């Protein structure tokens, strides 16, 4: 099987995630899109690990997973708090840094 197909898939997933982050308003969905981008990166890591024949890429993807897990913990906590205080999970409502 052609290696570049994995990379194409990774790129498509990443783009989908990025577009999702930019266009969606629901914080949960934005969050999941970020996860999608992270996993696209993981896919690329693993692919290159396969290409190079060593484990460096695999290790890097484990790191990403750990970071992603932490991020989920912190991120979900923030979203829940936000939802509690403003009865909405829309990221546009959280534009308090503006002024």
């Amino acid at each position, binding site marked *: 099987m052609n290696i570049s197909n994995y990379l194409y898939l990774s790129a498509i997933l990443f783009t989908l995630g*990025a577009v999702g*982050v*930019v*266009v*969606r*308003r629901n914080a949960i969905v*934005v969050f999941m899109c970020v996860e999608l981008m992270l996993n696209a990166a993981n896919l690329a890591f693993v692919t290159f690990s396969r290409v190079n024949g060593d484990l460096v890429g695999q290790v890097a993807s484990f790191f990403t997973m750990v970071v992603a897990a932490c991020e989920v913990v912190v991120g979900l906590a923030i979203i829940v708090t936000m939802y509690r205080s403003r009865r909405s999970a829309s*990221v*546009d409502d*959280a*534009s*308090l*840094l*503006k*002024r």
Partner: protein
Amino acid sequence: MTTSSHLVYLIALPLVSAAILLLLGRIADKWGHYVATLVSASTFAIAVIEFFSMRSRSGDARAATQDLFTWISVGSFNVHASLLLDQLSICFVLLITGVGTLIHIYSIAYMSHDHDRRRFFAYLNLFVAAMLLLVLGDSYLNLYVGWEGVGLASYLLIGFWNQKPAYAVAAKKAFVANRVGDIGLSLAIMIAFAQFGSVSFAGVKEGVPHASTAALTALGAMLLLAAAGKSAQFPLQSWLGDAMAGPTPVSALIHAATMVTAGVYLITRSNFVFDASHTAQNMVIAVGAITLLFGALVGTAKDDIKKALAASTMSQIGYMILATGLGPIGYAFAIMHLLTHGFFKAGMFLGAGSVMHGMNDEVNMRRYGAIGKVMPITAVTFGLGYLAIIGVPPFAGFYSKDKIIETAFNIGGSKGVIVGGAALLGAAITAFYMTRVIVLTFTGTKRWDDEAHPHESPALMWIPMVILAVGSIASGFLFNSGHALVKWLEPVVNASGAEEGEALLAPMTVSALALGVVAVGVAIAIVKYRTVPVEAPAGNVLTRIVRRDLLQDDFNDRVLVRPGQALTRFFVGMDKSFIDGIVRGVGGTIAVGSTNLRKIQNGYVRSYALIMVVGVLALLTTIWMVTL
């Protein structure tokens, strides 16, 4: 050279007295004027003692010096505070302390009704100290201290009644005009130091033979500028008339007898410079001749008795300055005229003060008339001064002024004719305007209101006037008998043997000519002022111009004051709008820029994300393009 240890008291006594009177304040009100007068009298006593001890010495030993302390010592610039009393300065010291003491006495009575008499006497003592420092300093820088000191005293005294805005303005005008002259003195000292490495009179004299003519001319021109400022000579003459705002004794002491003659002293003291540069000498002659005519003309149109006398002072100092430009012998005659003028002009000013004292401070001569009958002593002493100034023999002015006219003619050539002619014409105009003063004030019909009760002044006032009148009678004869003053001054001004030689006009001819023109001037005045209207007639254009002091203030106003004010306004505007504008502009640009940039920070996470994506893409594109 003799060293003396008590010259310093001449300066220290009045200075300390002034400081005490000023610092003690109202406590000294009761006795301050007596202390001041006593101090002034004791300086006169010291001066007389010094004079006789000087006469008892001979040759080079006559000059006495006293080194006080090192004043400034930086690199090769060494100035000692040291005093020099030689044949020239003793003349001034005697004049200053003598006339000064008389005027102190006069002022006790004249100022008796003034609330601030103590302050007045403190200023007078300050003046005496500064003037003595001026003539006793042995270097140009020491002289400068006295020079500015008398300027300060003059400023304080002109503005003595400074609650009147016009008087405060007059004081300021005098100070500023003097400062213009001070530029000259400052630059002269700088030139002296750059050329000779010394600023003492002796050091400069020693260096003169080695200097270039251009440098000496520049030095002379700067000294002349200084003299013009202090002595109210053209073109810095405009302050003297306004200076009459001060109390009359001040006008007599400072603005007639002593301070205004400091310019003559400066030029005489620097004789070695002027003798070495004919250009500088010619400038001196020109300034003197112009001023003597200028002052005389202005004098013809003044109705204010003090301003008429001030114009006369300006004109008489013009004679002295003219004389100092006439070479070695001229200096002696300049000093002679200076001394005789000190007597008769101070006497006349005191007379004018006496008249004002009796007339409720009225100064307009058109409101006088027939005062001779009620104030006989004043009239007689003033009349003696009058005879002296117009040059009637054997009064003082005859000797001193005729000598100057004679010497002017004798410089020869067309220059001699022009300068001599100007001096002769000046004598005629002097006779005219002084006769006018006499006629308007003392003779004719009474033109004063009945509220004025003119009365003879108290003895404290008329005694000094009488003494000065005696001086006006005798001084000229004394100075001239056996060329006493010329010989006395010879070591200072190198006047030896210069007096004789091929005279263009014999002394007798000159005297006859002078007396002739004086008679004409007197006659015209008597005829013209047989009747005097109380309100001045409108007069023709020429009269009006002369009344406006030959437009001196209009000229200064148009050429200096208004452009100066415009320049100031321009600079103030430029500072606010342009220079500070640039500063504020830089700040403003940054502020506007950040206001615009802030709009990107709209708080929407999604737009931040988008910007991030765009940024990453831009970065990648850049890397891609660079590596390509």
